């Protein structure tokens, strides 16, 4: 059979964000993939440089709608790294609670979408129903279902009220039975096994070579989790397990995420029960010149922020590296040789977040000179002229 190009994107029911995969297929078998992102670039790094350190936190929060806490968390840690300073104990706990709440709803969101991609819409709806409960709990804690606006350099902006804690604990306990049921439905379903086991395998070797992060790496047997390896927040205070599986296929990525849900629930419950008293904000006065890095384990992997200060009240340079940026190239290792039916779930298995990853990209210029706006307009006019002549249109 002849080679055919199957486009996935820029607008495709599979993905909720604009990105473009060009799959070259031979029959149903995929023999090549080209990934193109950059449809949604918003220049947030630049924007952040025009705001004060405090204002930037809110801009950064809007990099991504799902990991809306990971980015401010990493950013505030980078700013605190410039000084350097430690945030108050209570603030650390509150940060951990918010970050884990985000992990639960992010993993549930992914689980639902993965079900949808496999045509299992019941899992989709159930996971999202469950996610609503978590969003409600987060609303009680922070006042918002999304974009919690809890973070600021030096601490958190909002305290957790003592009378809210039992309510939230009850809400979290109430989701556990449904979560267990969902876990059984997903992990024990023979048809799901048939669809996901042995599909899109990322070997341990490849995971290390491609520097895969987060659940994508942990599913391939790479025991890498910043919360354990390089503890921050309150993660080193309590007992919890890093979930690592060995096979690296889609099924293992599902398992890692589903089991992490329960670890996150454990962490949140422990933090809420053991919340220390004290200040929630170190009240930073000014940021000295210097540079700092902050990295945290986001639901999708390590989020990395670099901030440089020149002594003014604005960041002189702000650099963001989202986990998807590192996980995206693993497609080359996982998708080639698979069938088109499996492509969708393999593409989704890294839990891609393209709006985090978006940046101006210069790709594959092959020694030619870079083209600018005017050049492109001129080229387009020339091409139109050529086509006109060819078709005989005046």
């Amino acid at each position, binding site marked *: 059979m002849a080679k*055919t190009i*199957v486009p996935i994107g820029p607008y*495709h029911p599979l993905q909720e964000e604009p990105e473009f995969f060009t799959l070259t297929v031979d029959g149903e078998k995929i023999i090549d993939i080209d990934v193109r992102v950059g449809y949604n670039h918003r220049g947030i790094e630049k924007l952040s440089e025009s705001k004060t350190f405090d204002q930037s936190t809110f801009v950064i929060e809007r990099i991504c709608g799902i990991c809306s806490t990971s980015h401010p968390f990493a950013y505030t840690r980078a700013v605190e790294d410039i000084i350097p300073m430690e945030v108050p104990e209570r603030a650390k706990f509150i940060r951990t609670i918010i970050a884990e709440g985000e992990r639960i709803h992010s993993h549930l969101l992914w689980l639902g979408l993965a079900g949808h991609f*496999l*045509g*299992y819409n*019941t899992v989709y709806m*159930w996971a999202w129903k469950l996610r609503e409960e978590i969003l409600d709990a987060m609303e009680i804690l922070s006042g918002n279902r999304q974009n919690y606006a809890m973070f600021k350099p030096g601490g958190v902006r909002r305290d957790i009220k003592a009378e809210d804690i039992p309510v939230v604990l009850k809400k979290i306990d109430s989701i556990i039975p449904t979560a267990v049921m969902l876990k059984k439905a997903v992990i024990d379903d023979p048809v799901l096994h*048939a*669809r996901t086991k042995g599909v899109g395998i990322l070997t341990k070797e490849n995971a290390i070579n491609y520097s895969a992060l987060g659940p994508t790496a942990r599913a391939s047997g790479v025991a890498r989790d910043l919360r354990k390896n390089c503890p921050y927040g309150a993660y080193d205070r309590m007992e919890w397990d890093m979930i690592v599986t060995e096979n690296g296929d889609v099924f293992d990525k599902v398992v890692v995420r589903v089991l992490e849900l329960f670890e996150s629930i454990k962490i949140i419950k422990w933090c809420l029960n053991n919340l220390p008293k004290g200040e929630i904000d170190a009240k930073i006065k000014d940021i000295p010149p210097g540079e700092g890095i902050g990295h945290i384990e986001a639901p999708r992997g390590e989020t990395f922020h670099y901030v440089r200060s020149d002594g003014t009240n604005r960041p002189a340079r702000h650099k963001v590296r989202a986990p998807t940026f590192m996980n995206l190239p693993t497609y080359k290792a996982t998708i080639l040789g698979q069938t088109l039916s499996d492509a969708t779930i393999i593409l989704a298995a890294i839990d891609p977040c393209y709006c985090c990853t978006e940046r101006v990209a210069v790709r594959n210029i092959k020694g030619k000179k870079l083209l600018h706006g005017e050049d492109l307009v001129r080229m387009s006019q020339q091409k139109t002229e050529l086509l006109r002549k060819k078709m005989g249109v005046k």
Partner: protein
Amino acid sequence: MTTMMINALNYSVYLLIFGFLLTAFIGLFASWVDRKVTARVQYRVGPPLLQPLIDIVKLLGKETLVPAGASKMTFLTAPVIGLAGAILVATILWMNNIAPGKSFVGDLIVVLYLLTIPSLSIIMGGFASRNPLASIGASREMKLVLGYELPFILAMLVIVIKSGFTIRLADIVLYQTHHGSIISSWSGVLAFIVVIMCTQAKLALVPFDIPEAETEIVGGPLIEYSGTALAIYKLTKNMLLFILPFFIITLFLGGINLKGVDILWGLLKYVGLVALITVIRNTNPRVRIDQAVNFFWGPMTTISVIAVLLALAGK
């Protein structure tokens, strides 16, 4: 001459009133039931009663686009052929249940042939539309048809053997009124399982919605269809949601008797079957095409062969 004309009139009544209109309305209703039940299972509200009808009417009013480079004739006739096949099957089934005397010998075989016509029309339309995703969808549909036809025909063989080697639907119904429905025997149960699975594939519902797989190939063969042509495809699919359960009821569950209270019993059988199909559809992910073909040629064919042997042994 006059008897012929009366006969022709009679048949066209069956064709238009029962075969098309009634089937279409019951089909639309069934599709509403399916959507509503699915929605409730998934904690959603679900569409209002008239939604399937509104969808079709709305599509009828839209422009029909023919993609550049597509084979226009095939592209536009394919949906009509599918609809015609569905209407003919419905007519034969209704005639068998309302006026058994009017049916003819061998109509079971005719129905089996006609039931593949909607699938064939989807394959035709898909290949005619000159879209890579549609071609992939059409080739998947083709593989799927090759997959499920074998166990489906074998399961039909069970019916033929059980009802004393008759290939006339009316005789099968008659046999069941005298000897109890075919599903009450072991071979009947096995054949019924096979047929339910094949029905799922014939209706292109999860787990066998592989040809249309919206998250993979965006609707597959239907990707380029719009307006009236798409409406006809949708209508055909809705009608099949009535025709196939009706066919199964006729073969396995003793048919539908339209006299007196029995009509309620018939309705119950039908709703039960639709609910079964909906439940299967909501508790499974989509399988891959190779897995589907393996499933039909492996376990399903084995089960149907066992069923045939059991039927021959009189079980």
